[in-house]
């Protein structure tokens, strides 16, 4: 059986609603997290992201001026100084399926529709910790692999046949982000 050592995780939460931030903080602290940073808008969250280098970002969608979707898109810039690979959990009151697609295409890792539950939040965190997905880079997308499942009955072109593996020695993403490379 596996358990998450929340004491070793650093979270950044972003929501313009102070009540929701209080609830999220309460849940994360109850899970065992000690480092929980808060931002009330996307722009502040982006600054804090570069400064604190969180392990996981939990963001609302609808916020004034600079929303959660734009925050995810900025984090996912592959050329950015910060870590573009950090898991992003979008926690939102939007409940339409098309919103999930839009969030996914912005590079969000997990989507959690409000009302929030302790179990739902824990499960999403467990997903990103225990089952990280590879990243995909195309001309128009950079983010977690949007394929969740293997479809054994798929009939159509297969774009991931062959290809060449290239192994690049790089400093760890955490060190890279902290050193500002």
């Amino acid at each position, binding site marked *: *059986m596996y358990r998450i050592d*929340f004491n070793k995780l650093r979270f950044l939460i972003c929501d313009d609603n102070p009540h929701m931030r209080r609830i999220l903080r309460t849940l994360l602290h109850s899970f065992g997290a000690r480092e929980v940073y808060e931002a009330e808008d996307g722009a502040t969250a982006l600054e804090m992201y570069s400064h604190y280098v969180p392990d996981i970002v939990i963001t609302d969608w609808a916020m004034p001026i600079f929303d959660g979707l734009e925050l995810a898109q900025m984090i996912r810039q592959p050329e950015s100084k910060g870590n573009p690979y950090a898991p992003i959990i979008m926690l939102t009151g939007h409940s*339409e399926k098309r919103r*999930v697609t839009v969030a996914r295409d912005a590079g969000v890792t997990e989507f959690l529709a409000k009302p929030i539950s302790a179990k739902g939040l824990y499960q999403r965190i467990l997903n990103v910790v225990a089952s990280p997905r*590879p990243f*995909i880079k195309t001309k128009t997308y950079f983010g977690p692999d949007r394929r969740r499942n293997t479809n054994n009955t798929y009939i159509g072109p297969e774009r991931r046949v062959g290809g060449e593996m*290239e192994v*690049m020695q790089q400093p*760890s993403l955490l060190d890279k982000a902290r050193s500002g490379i």
Partner: protein
Amino acid sequence: MAKEKPGTLQIKSFGDHHVITQPNPLRKVLLRVPESDLDDPVGRAEKALAGLSGEFKNWMAIEADRLSAAHAAVLRDGFTLDNREELFRAAHDIKGDAATFGFPSAGAAADSLCRIIEHAPDLDQVPADLITHHINAIQAIVRERTKLDTAVMASKLSKQLRGVADEFLLKVNRDRPEHLEAILAPSIVPAE
């Protein structure tokens, strides 16, 4: 977190995309524990959330008042870009938070109001009473919560509002298939 050793990114290139795999940087926070481990972080968190519940009614009242203030601005100045945004955000926040605060029917009514704001082709053509009834319903649900039969009445009220709103939206969007599809699509959130 502990300092990571230099890792490697594995990049597999295909015709029109790359697949990038990195060693899981969060693997060190996963602990293998025996089955007898009784730690229950979800249970702890649920208790902590229950501990906050004394503040929920006050928070809900604050959010309902914010919604009323946004509506008052609309009644005074009409639907400007800013007024519309603030009304939508106030309703959207209630939609997302109300069930957590113990007011699921207020959340349902707020959801119905959000749908009107998002899908009405011209907000100035929405019957004023339709929006006012939504605002009044949310305020009533929040204020009257402690009375008997409130939950049943609140649920009935929010369902009625949703029915009227949907009827209006289907009528005014009959020539807008994208909006019709969104209006008719099921929510990803389980029903009350």
